């Protein structure tokens, strides 16, 4: 058993886990962050995507001990201070980007990381589609997800433009 110290959505946690315990199981079953979902446990579907020190990872392919000392962000950390949906979450609802919602946390975290990158400012529909192709969704046919990510990128860029003037 190994001690692990990490923060999840800014909240510090200390626990002891088996070396082989995945980050996904640790988050879900040891720490109660059940918003991170497991769809395949072999790194294809991306439903378990979380941010590990800002970088999107498949939490099923990372061991809990590898997150020692790290800052982890999960879907539960996206909403604002007053529990208001973030612009990205709101865009997912507006564009009907989710049906069963099982894959949604993974797409949100994937997009959250990409939208923080400089190239997101000029995101095209093709780029949004390529990003979306990283994960699997079985319900929506992806169009709403592509549209929601693209709309958020454009709205953030517009907001930045307004901030500059």
């Amino acid at each position: 058993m190994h001690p692990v110290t990490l923060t999840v959505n800014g909240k510090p946690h200390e626990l002891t886990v088996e070396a082989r315990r995945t980050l996904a199981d640790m988050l879900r079953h040891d720490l109660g962050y059940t918003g991170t979902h497991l769809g395949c446990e072999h790194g294809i579907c991306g439903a378990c995507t979380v941010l590990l020190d800002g970088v999107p990872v498949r939490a099923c392919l990372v061991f809990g001990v590898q997150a020692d000392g790290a800052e982890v962000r999960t879907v539960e950390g996206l909403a604002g201070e007053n529990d208001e949906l973030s612009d990205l979450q709101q865009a997912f609802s507006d564009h009907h980007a989710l049906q069963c919602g099982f894959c949604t946390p993974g797409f949100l975290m994937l997009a959250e990381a990409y939208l923080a990158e400089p190239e997101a400012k000029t995101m095209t529909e093709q780029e949004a589609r390529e990003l979306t192709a990283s994960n699997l969704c079985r319900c929506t046919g992806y169009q709403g997800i592509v549209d929601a990510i693209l709309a958020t990128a454009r709205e953030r860029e517009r907001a930045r433009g307004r901030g500059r003037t």
Partner: protein
Amino acid sequence: MIGASLPRKEDPRLLRGLGCFGDDVDAAGQLYARIVRSPVAHGRITNIDVSRVRGNGITAIVTAEDLPDLHRIPVRLTVEGPDLSGYLQPVLAAGTVRYAGEPLAVVVGEDSYACEDAADELDVDIEELPPALDAQTAPQAAELTRAYGDPGAAFRQAAHVTEITVTIGRHSGVPLEPRCLLAVPAGGDLHIYGMTKVPVYNRDLLARMLNVDQHSIHVHPVDAGGGFGIRGEFYPEDFLIPWLAKTMNRPVKWTEDRAENLVAANHSRQQHHTVRAAFDGKGHLTALTDHVIQDNGAYCRTHGISVAELTIAMLPGPYRIPAYRGHASIRLTNKTPCGTYRAPGRYEGTTAREHLMDVAADQLGIDRVELRRRNLLTKADMPHRRPISTLGTDLVLDTGDYPALLEAAVREADRLGYRAPDDSTRTRHGFGLAMFVEKSGLGPRETADVTITEAGHVVISAGGTTLGQGIETVLAQIAADALGAPAANITVITGDTDKQPFGTGSWASRSTVVGGSAVHEAALAVRQEALSHAAKALEAAEQDLEIVNGEVVVRGSASGVGCADGPAARVSLAEIARTAEGGLSARRTFEVDHMTYPYGVHAAAVSVDEDTGAVTVLRYLVAYEVGRAVNPMLVEGQLRGGVAQGIGGALLEEFGYDADGQPQSVSFMDYRMPTAAEIPRIDILLTQEHPSPGNPLGVMGAGEGGINAVGAAIANAVRDALGRPGPIASLPLTPATVRTQNP
């Protein structure tokens, strides 16, 4: 409220990661279960040695010998005629294993990882037997026929006959959330988390198998990560986990992994069609026949042979066919058993029929759209009674204008530039079109309770379940419409057998139609009761009252202020709920004898790379008549999602087996579901011109119209691109398949 694309009630919790999926639920002191599955396709179990894996936190290992009875899971959807009792799946294999993945034993322990280790270490000796893998030569479990008229005579007199064969690959719904179940014993009762789709049926069946009273089993609602026909059926685990919890008197939790899911949950679709059409000299269909061989896998599960029945019952589709004979032979192979997958039987049958229409049109020298136009049933034919039955109901096409929708779809495809010329020498463009009739709103009944709480909140206890389709939003809109209460102020409870013990469930595109009608009638009853109370309180006539934003007001009293010494001009629903004897609540059951039949046209533009055989879907159009859309955004979402799944089955997804019957698709690397890179932007032409006459809302189902004709439209487009005179429909059209079709 009805007709508005309101935001979904489900979204806020799901977007926050606060949904409650099956594996999100834990019980104090729970044990974990791991199923041990057969590693071989066919064989005799000679020994299961449990001695080596006892200890190490392992509480129990259970084999068929430990069960009180060898339970077999009965058929839920029975088709009159064939006796399937000899082909039902036992909850644990005893003596013989019949597919790789069949449950042999259950390991129960304190830690899920340790259970998985122990399951791997279990010594199972199986004397292998040769597997049956080819349905053409495999034993037959049942056969059935749906027929009318005299096809033999029609074929003898035909001016032209076209016959083709079409095969549909083995694939399935594959929801992104694997199956899971938690059973918690408490005070002699059992609480179940993870059942969905048909929770009341499953509760009752479980009660019979456990020999307990059905009311001692409480199925609690969970979010479900996609249904698509396969989730929520009663599987071996649905007996084993509750039985273990009851026997051990401890909570037991089971969550399958993806490798298990792909060999354990229902497969679907695998059929071989020999379909044949007779035409007169003017290109009119005079007869249609189809002989279907269905590879059903190792057992008949809860769907029995209903997929084969739906295939041959729905095969005639939108056309006027004077004589018809559909025959299906259901064969048993040593593969995972099959069940329904979204648009069961129609995806398969539409592919066969619509591919036949294209091949026949080319042989007759008639434009492909024109051949369909000549043979479609028209508005004047409606309602059209086909002298055959399906799912125990007479097949009566209730309403519609098929030719008008065909014209609209062709116009739309042309407007959007679907029929573009080839743009390079090695890439060929093709255009494919397919028309279909869908079915929806299967009865016999659904029940809903609508209650206004003393706080003025509206609570609906519905008989359906949440599967991702947005049922909470849709039912809230229907109730809001009847009650004059904002949809945001309505809570919809689904999948709870205590709160709605009469639910029939969410399947067969029935929840908006049958469940929605039950909510509509219950909400109207509550409205009537509220008005009658308010009439007394306000000293006004009922017909002068209306409900606005949760308050009953005297119509036209804009200020809503009564005279100082006269009666009040308004009373809130909350107040009425507080003062009315027995509260403000109604239960209504909506019963319906016939299904309602929406219909549509799919059109695909594809490119085919002649060198590699790779097919790219460039554009995709769905034109669909839905009667009335309660929430158009959700209807379009259903259609788009269906198209994506349909493209998967047409081009990518297949459960392959090797010569020993070993499954070759046990991960998402080899079971290839489409990503955003394979799915184009999907165009929708949604029409609401022919409300269903069979329900008070005029609605038709939307769950399956998006997938129904995808195999057909893609196959037709690829054939068009390749310019083949004969059929090419052997789905999935992988690059290798396309290359061999186009040597």
